[in-house]
């Protein structure tokens, strides 16, 4: 589906992401992991065409850079980490924006678009707050609104920047379960930046481990999240630490 070749990103004269290659197949969920400042979010933003980059990104064999904005949005969508909505839009209006790429200059939304909006809202459990202003929503609700927006957009590839950051555990689980349900439909794939390595291991099919902009390991999630690779990048025995944390729960 997606092929990335020699992709690198330079910001303010400093190379944040060094040339790297990877590809995404149907049904993949690739976890972008690494310590703070490794270049994960930068890489994700470059994939979403929000940053200038060198190298090539092709979607189904076509250069993403040359796709029209609407066409690109039908292929891939980005769910950001922060949402600084400035005005009192209703949750429904924000979700409906997801259908923008399906409409045209003079072609407004159809009943089909409305069906997608309502389905996405229902899937994310937002029926009761659809007409509420997004300024009054909690962080978890707001994240679900934007998740519903990308579901309504119905892209083939979902780019997620720390989708469950700042969310409490029930919401975190809900978001990951929703995405994993979405991925069950054939022809779809997900790339997500995730800080929590246990989530990466639980949901990731493949993984890309970044360290200061360089690829430290890539491949099947279970391999990349192996003891040695993580020890080198994180400078600690991550596995031992995770076990120690769990032991506290088992003893309780």
């Amino acid at each position: 589906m997606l092929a990335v070749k020699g992709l690198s990103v330079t910001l303010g004269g400093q190379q944040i992401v060094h040339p790297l290659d990877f590809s995404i197949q149907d049904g993949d969920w690739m976890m972008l992991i690494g310590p703070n400042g490794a270049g994960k979010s930068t890489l994700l933003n470059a994939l979403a065409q929000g940053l200038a980059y060198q190298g090539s990104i092709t979607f189904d064999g076509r250069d993403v850079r040359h796709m029209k904005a609407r066409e690109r949005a039908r292929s891939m969508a980005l769910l950001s980490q922060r949402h600084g909505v400035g005005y009192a839009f209703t949750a429904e209006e924000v979700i409906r924006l997801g259908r923008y790429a399906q409409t045209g200059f003079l072609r407004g939304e159809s009943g089909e678009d409305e069906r997608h909006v309502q389905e996405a809202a229902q899937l994310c459990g937002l029926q009761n707050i659809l007409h509420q202003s997004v300024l009054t929503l909690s962080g978890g609700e707001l994240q679900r609104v934007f998740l519903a927006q990308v579901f309504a957009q119905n892209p083939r590839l979902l780019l997620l920047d720390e989708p469950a950051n700042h969310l409490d555990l029930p919401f975190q689980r809900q978001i990951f379960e929703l995405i994993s349900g979405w991925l069950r439909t054939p022809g779809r794939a997900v790339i997500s930046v995730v800080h929590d390595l246990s989530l990466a291991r639980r949901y990731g099919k493949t993984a890309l481990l970044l360290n200061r902009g360089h690829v430290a390991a890539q491949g099947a999630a279970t391999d990349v999240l192996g003891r040695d690779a993580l020890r080198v990048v994180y400078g600690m025995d991550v596995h031992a630490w995770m076990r120690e944390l769990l032991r506290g729960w088992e003893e309780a």
Partner: protein
Amino acid sequence: MSIKPRREGFSPRDYLLFTLATLGTALLCVCAGSVPVPPGDALRAVGSALFGLIPADEPAQTIILSLRLPRVLASGLVGASLSLCGAAMQGLLRNPLADGSTLGVASGASLGAVIAIAFGITIPGLPQLGVMGMAMLTAFLSLVLILSLAWRMDASLSTNTIILVGVIFSMFASAVISLAVAFSGPRLRSVTFWTMGSLSTASYRDGLTLLVALAVCGAVLLFSARELNAFAVGEDNARSVGVNVKGVKLRVMVTVSVLIGVCVSIGGTIGFVGLVTPHMARLIVGPNHRRLLPAVLFSGAIFLMLTDLAARTIISPIELPLGVVTSLIGAVLFVVIFMRTRRVR
């Protein structure tokens, strides 16, 4: 079960209501003044001019047709234009304080107009277009300059940075305008006209120019309502849902600059209009630009016609510059909105 598409925009009923309110205000404004004219006479005067009906008695006929109507038309059209520009900028920059005057675009346009007059820059055959063209050009250039300066200081383009840069730029432009006026003698109108705007000398030709500019630019902006919604939610989000971010930004900025350039070259800097009406309209119809932009179009016209009425009647027979009254109202509202945006954060 089939699902009907939801209408987010204005319904024909909304258009009718707002049109009636605007026409009603226009009638009030042509009738009221130092010499009150009964509405019947005002309508007869307009009817005689438009359809050749029996004219009203003098002096009502002359007062309405030669003095008040062109001015009311111009104030309505300038009000609608500036408000539409304000609403579009506020959506694009996700900043409720953005407006031609707070961003410094209006001062930039004034500067251009002043330069054109001082140096006698004209387009052969179309003398008025020289001033107007320069105003549009400098409006656009100042918008680009202000936004890129603000962007260099703070890439997130926060409210405070943009406004600060806009205010500094306005002061700079005003200083240059004062200099130009001081040196060029009687060729230029007073500094007050360029910094505090007035529509007291507006003609029918000005009205026609404004109407054409508003029809073209207004259509572009109204057709960008969905894109502006996306920007108002966030630029990254706009890109993700498929908006051509750079293209739309450029389109809106050029359109806004053209419209502000036309308004400024005809009426000087009438500040804060684009700040006041979108704020009021948002309270009534919400932030969705598919409703907000048409609402702002009409309420902007209503607001400026009423303000101009106030400017010429409050301490009659002395007439206040229109920009003085709009700034009095706008500055207070600016503080209110600013405090509110800070509280949200």
